[in-house]
């Protein structure tokens, strides 16, 4: 049996691994090409009387078709190849449902008859009626098939989108190979959506058209001397010799470009920046930009499911493509679904974001905070500080250290586009609806931030006081206006008086209320509503600083700690037991007690489908008892589907 060993590390559905079959190993991701392209990682052969005799390289994939019949030598070739494509026909993307079914049934027969069905690769044409494929894929999986070929014609139209959608429907542990006309600039995107092998026959086609491929387009070349500068070996060698076979030089160059772009994608993935690379490639052509937007719309739940909840220390979000990137859209969604404000807030202060993250460490926010404290004299805790920003929408002060709020960076001009305003207004509307209608909204906003508020204000129940008429939010004038406004509102609400020493409940509030609020909000955000009050009850003793570490202890027992650098909570076993009743973020394994520092997918019997890579998870044994906590290395569904790989890195165990 062949198996796909997927390595640790996630950035969207992209992954790295090894296809291990009894007759060979393929490291993924890999470049796949015909025998006439040198330097590919895997060679495919279409059994054909003319070509079979000429093959000298080890073949990785044999691709017979349905109509040619078997040719001499094919069986020997197939026995030696780690992968054998199930035969089909050209044009299957446009046939009737009955015909597609009949063609795939033929493939299932072939797989069923094969000595090792795990080496058979299913060919799935990019048909419109994709629902048809689901049951056939399941049947193939049951037969033992673990790989699929998807077609891309390179037009970036409906058929290519269909292939992406089909990818999202396949079991996660299938090897998927994209064949057809794949431009170099498409490789990062296909890698991002979880394609493992890339057909580079386009390198040959371009060479025969006398074209050099680049990451951002093609160049017609009549003579290598008059062409753009290129430092690749194929081009530099060609420049030295006066005459050469132009076609083979171009082929060499083109494959070099694929190699470069794939390694770029691998590197970006390892840094958590693959999405950024994919977005940057959309500038190659309007077609690429359209395609990514369509992909995001069509398979967002799939991409989101495999996008880690932790990320790089620096996350550039540059254009409109970022607005709906999984990490960004998920933050907005989780905030809307899971955040609930502390009950005693009487003022909501809307603030602009800052370039430096977390916001409170920026110069502008330090001045805002000083102003709040001087205006309210210690009653800052009555204020819910809410940062308006694009494209995250709003970020409450308590969650400013969470990924991606503490890591993102955007180009700032002060002008917001309509989509940014729409997104932020929607987030603001939802956020403010969670506060009592009695609270006063103080809007310390100008420019685009004010536009957001204007777009949302009709749906805001609370009264809004504006502190800035125009100009900068950090000018002395603006800050003075903010101080006066807060002071006035505070006076009206009786906030300063409480500080003077009356025995009302605000008196008892610790001066570092933000610490408790941060831990509670973080707990709700990480583990779902209700987790905050379970993990950080009023009786909790909190020690430490938000920018470093805060431990939370109840009755002498530590429940969790907050790590400022990630903005996340780490659970102790006691903490895990407290929140296990919520029924979220659990992984059940086949056994009584954990051994070692890892839980492997093979041992996992079931897992919460809500789990994303990077999540803090609770490990349950067969009896449903909490026996460990740790960090997930994969998504819940992968833990269930995979037969290998590390599912959870255990932090504490029984």
């Amino acid at each position, binding site marked *: 049996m062949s198996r796909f060993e997927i390595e640790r590390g996630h950035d969207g559905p992209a992954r790295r691994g090894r296809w291990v079959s009894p007759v060979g190993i393929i490291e993924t991701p890999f470049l796949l090409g*015909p025998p*006439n392209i040198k330097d590919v990682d895997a060679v*495919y052969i*279409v059994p*054909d*009387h003319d*070509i079979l005799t000429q093959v000298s390289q080890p073949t990785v994939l044999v*691709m*017979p*078709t*349905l*109509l*040619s*019949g*078997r040719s001499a030598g094919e069986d020997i070739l197939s026995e030696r190849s780690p992968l054998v494509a199930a*035969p*089909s*026909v*050209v*044009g*299957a*993307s*446009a*046939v*009737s449902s*009955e*015909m597609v*079914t*009949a*063609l795939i*049934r*033929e493939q299932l*027969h*072939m797989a069923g008859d094969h000595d090792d069905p795990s080496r058979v690769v299913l*060919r799935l*044409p990019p048909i419109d009626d994709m629902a048809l494929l689901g049951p056939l894929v399941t049947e193939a999986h049951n037969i033992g098939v673990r790989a699929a070929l998807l*077609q*891309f*014609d390179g*037009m970036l139209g409906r*058929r290519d989108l269909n292939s992406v959608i089909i990818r999202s429907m396949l079991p996660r542990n299938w090897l998927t190979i994209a*064949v*057809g*006309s794949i431009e170099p600039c498409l490789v990062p995107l296909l890698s991002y959506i979880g394609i493992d092998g890339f*057909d580079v*026959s386009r390198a*040959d*086609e371009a060479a*025969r*058209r*006398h074209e050099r491929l680049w990451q951002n387009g093609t160049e017609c070349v009549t003579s290598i001397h008059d062409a753009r500068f290129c430092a690749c070996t194929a081009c530099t060698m060609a420049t030295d010799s006066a005459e050469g076979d132009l*076609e083979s030089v171009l082929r060499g160059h083109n494959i070099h470009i694929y190699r470069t772009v794939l390694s770029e994608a691998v590197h970006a993935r390892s840094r958590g920046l693959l999405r950024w690379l994919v977005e940057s490639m959309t500038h190659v052509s309007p077609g690429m930009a359209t395609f990514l937007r369509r992909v995001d719309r069509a398979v967002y739940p799939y991409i989101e499911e495999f996008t880690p909840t932790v990320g790089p220390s620096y996350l550039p979000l540059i254009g409109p493509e970022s607005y709906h990137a999984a990490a960004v859209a998920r933050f907005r969604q989780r905030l809307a679904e899971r955040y609930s404000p502390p009950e005693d807030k009487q003022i909501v202060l809307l603030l602009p974001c800052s370039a430096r993250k977390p916001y409170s460490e920026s110069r502008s926010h330090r001045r805002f905070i000083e102003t709040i404290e001087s205006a309210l004299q210690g009653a800052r805790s009555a204020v819910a500080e809410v940062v308006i920003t694009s494209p995250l929408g709003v970020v409450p002060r308590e969650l400013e250290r969470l990924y991606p709020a503490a890591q993102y960076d955007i180009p700032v001009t002060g002008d917001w586009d309509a989509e940014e305003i729409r997104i932020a207004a929607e987030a603001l509307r939802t956020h403010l609806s969670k506060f009592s209608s009695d609270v006063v909204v103080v809007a310390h906003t100008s420019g685009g931030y004010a536009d957001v508020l204007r777009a949302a204000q009709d749906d805001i129940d609370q009264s809004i006081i504006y502190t800035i008429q125009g100009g900068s939010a950090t000018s002395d004038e603006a800050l003075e206006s903010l101080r006066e406004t807060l002071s006035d509102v505070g006076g009206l609400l009786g906030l300063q008086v409480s500080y003077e020493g009356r025995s009302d409940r605000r008196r008892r509030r610790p001066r570092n209320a933000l610490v408790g609020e941060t831990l509670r909000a973080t707990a709700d955000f990480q583990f779902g509503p209700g987790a905050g009050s379970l993990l950080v009850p009023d009786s909790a003793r909190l020690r430490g600083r938000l920018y470093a570490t805060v431990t939370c202890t109840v009755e002498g027992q530590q429940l969790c700690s907050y790590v400022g650098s990630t903005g996340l909570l780490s659970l102790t076993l006691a903490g895990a037991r407290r929140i296990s009743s919520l029924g979220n973020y659990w992984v059940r394994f086949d056994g009584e007690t954990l051994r070692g520092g890892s839980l492997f997918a093979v041992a996992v019997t079931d897992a919460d489908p809500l789990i994303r890579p990077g999540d803090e998870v609770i490990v349950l044994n067969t009896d449903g008892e909490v026996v460990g906590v740790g960090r997930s290395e994969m998504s819940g569904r992968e833990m269930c589907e995979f037969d290998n790989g590390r599912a959870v890195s255990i932090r504490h165990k029984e």
Partner: protein
Amino acid sequence: MSDVIRDMDRLTEAVSKMSLEARADSIASRRRRNPEIPAAAWTARTVVQGNEGTAIAIVLSTIGCSHARDENGGCTMCSYLLDGTEAPVTADDLVKQFRTAMMRVSDADGPLSVKLYTSGSFLDPEEVPPQARGEILQLISSDSRVQHVVIESRPEFVIEDAVVEVRQALPDVFVEIGMGLESSNDVIRLLCLNKGFTRAEFISAVETARRHGIGTRAYVLLKPPFLTEQEALTDAVETMQDAAEMGVTTVSVNPVNIQRHTLVSQLWSRGAYRPPWLWTVVEALQRARMFLPVGVRIECDPVAGGTHRGAHNCGDCDGAALDAIRRFSLTQDLRTFDGLDCHCRPRWHHVLEHEGASLVVHY
């Protein structure tokens, strides 16, 4: 039969259904033509039995091909029956059509070659009533200029009685019956083309004709749907060789052109089919000419050649390629193709080598 396919019936049924759907109501909504006028007729200078003469091609307007009319959907690439008419056509009408057409050569010098097409089967008694068939053959035999006659039929109508009738009516004329073999591979013919007859039936028809000294022309289809360019090339060459071995007298290569209301046309409009490259036609003719006995002529005149709906190359070289193909059909001389080249030829090589791997249609 293919040693790969497991459930041929299921596949052919699906193709038949698609073909029927593509056909839709196109047959019922055919034009009602004047039944006394042929669908088409044209003349050309040609070589008839070694001497320069005139060829007249006549397309009789009939009710259309029996196979195309029946409920299995007809051939996947052909809607020639749309040249026919929905109006009833009597035996008298057909004879009048023939007479009308022959007026075009009333003043022509002999020898004459008469090509009698029906967009169906001349020997099908339902399509061409026996009375009409008899009278038309009589008219031909009474014209002493005629030295060569081609009629067309599906093989199932090439039976002893029909062949004898033709032979007796035209005792001194070289007669050929053209039949659409298309591919000698049963899977390709039955599955991809929905042609509805087997290789054995075709061979039987060739032999029946030969027993009575009647020649046969095998129409060979270049690039049936669901075949890659490479498979199409291989299949066409193999089919030509097989046809020669079966004993046909002429091989006529027909590159697929996109005809309305066909399965092929649906695939084409959805970007899932490209008519063959003219390079493939040239290559097939060259390879076949080298393998086939000298006595077997190879002809080719690509319908809609050089257009998107017919066999085409890049646009720059289509004219030259078509010229060479037509010259070759007359001369059978392989040197006709010498020097034919274009910047698109390497691309065609790429298509041959790669289309089979991805099964993505290469344009």
